[in-house]
């Protein structure tokens, strides 16, 4: 699915042309919403942000090398998820509850004690866990305005659009069956006239 190797899947978007001397501005804007790792002591389960195309741990962008010689701005969306699976949580909570009951010579913990125990176990497990790391390639053709997101996931696309628009203060338009016609030179009146066409029925007996 990634740009660099293997088979390719991506979603298409379109954005207005960048302003004059955009390199410095865009480098700053990307850096401002760079990826920041989850603090395992917090309760945050998911974070996202921008990283360099070839370094998942670098969120600073150099205006001088921001755009490739072929005219692309390449970067990555990093999404980290730190969530303890329900099954894992249950196993550790059950074990700790059993230990406490045994130590206190009790049959079971109260509801309140159990809730408190869950919080403690979750904190401990988060400190011992690594987040799931997801990297999504982005290729922005500065000249044509086409932005490609190398993912087919709707959830990733939604997170991407939100962060992109916040970062660059611009609207990102998804390319679909109609907008691709504009992009390839058809005028608005022509595209609008398509809505007047009735769907064809090819299975009818020919005249």
């Amino acid at each position: 699915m990634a740009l660099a190797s293997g088979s390719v899947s991506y979603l298409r978007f379109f954005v207005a042309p960048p302003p004059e001397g955009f390199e410095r501005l865009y480098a700053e804007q990307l850096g401002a919403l760079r990826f920041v790792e989850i603090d395992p002591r917090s309760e945050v389960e998911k974070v996202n942000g921008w990283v360099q195309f070839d370094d998942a741990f670098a969120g600073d962008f150099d205006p001088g090398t921001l755009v490739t010689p072929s005219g692309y701005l390449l970067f990555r969306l990093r999404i980290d998820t730190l969530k303890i699976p329900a099954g894992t949580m249950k196993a550790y909570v059950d074990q700790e509850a059993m230990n406490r009951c045994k130590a206190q010579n009790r049959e079971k913990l109260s509801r309140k004690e159990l809730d408190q125990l869950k919080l403690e176990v979750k904190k401990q497990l988060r400190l011992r866990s690594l987040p799931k790391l997801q990297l999504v390639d982005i290729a922005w053709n500065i000249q044509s305005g086409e932005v490609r997101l190398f993912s087919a996931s709707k959830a990733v696309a939604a997170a991407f659009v939100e962060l992109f628009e916040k970062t660059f203060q611009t609207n990102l338009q998804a390319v679909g069956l109609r907008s691709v016609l504009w992009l390839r030179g058809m005028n608005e009146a022509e595209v609008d006239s398509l809505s007047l066409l009735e769907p064809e029925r090819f299975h009818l007996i020919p005249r």
Partner: protein
Amino acid sequence: MGREFLTWLWFEAERNEGGVDTPTFGRVGVDFGQRLSLETGGNTKEGSTVQADAPSQAEEARTALRTGKKVAKARLLLDAGERQYQVNLDAESLTIAGAKLPTMLGPKDASLLDERLRLIDELEAILDEMYVGFVRLRMDEGRWAPVREAMREWVAGSGA
């Protein structure tokens, strides 16, 4: 319009010696690979999926066409001169998925990434040009009417 486009591609691929003409790339060879899904339109969609080496030749696919279904998803094999592409297309969006790019030896100073971006540009342009070509044909009743009749004959089983 996406399902009509993919169905037309199938028809053109059979009628036009396996190719579709494009303004930039000339004749592009089109074939259907591995898996073909057909659906009826409207709110209650009925579908058929054919999995075979040459699904467009399968009787099951022809039968689906004759019952009013159109191509909803296809794996296309595209032959643009020296370069061959494979891509999954969904008629709902024509989003490019599972695309296999040709392996090329580009100029020595070109990075692999640049080369892959160039190939993606080309694949996208080929598909867009074929789609825009179809839409323009579809909007021109004078040119479209004989194609419609030919497609109906093709669907009815009298061949391309």
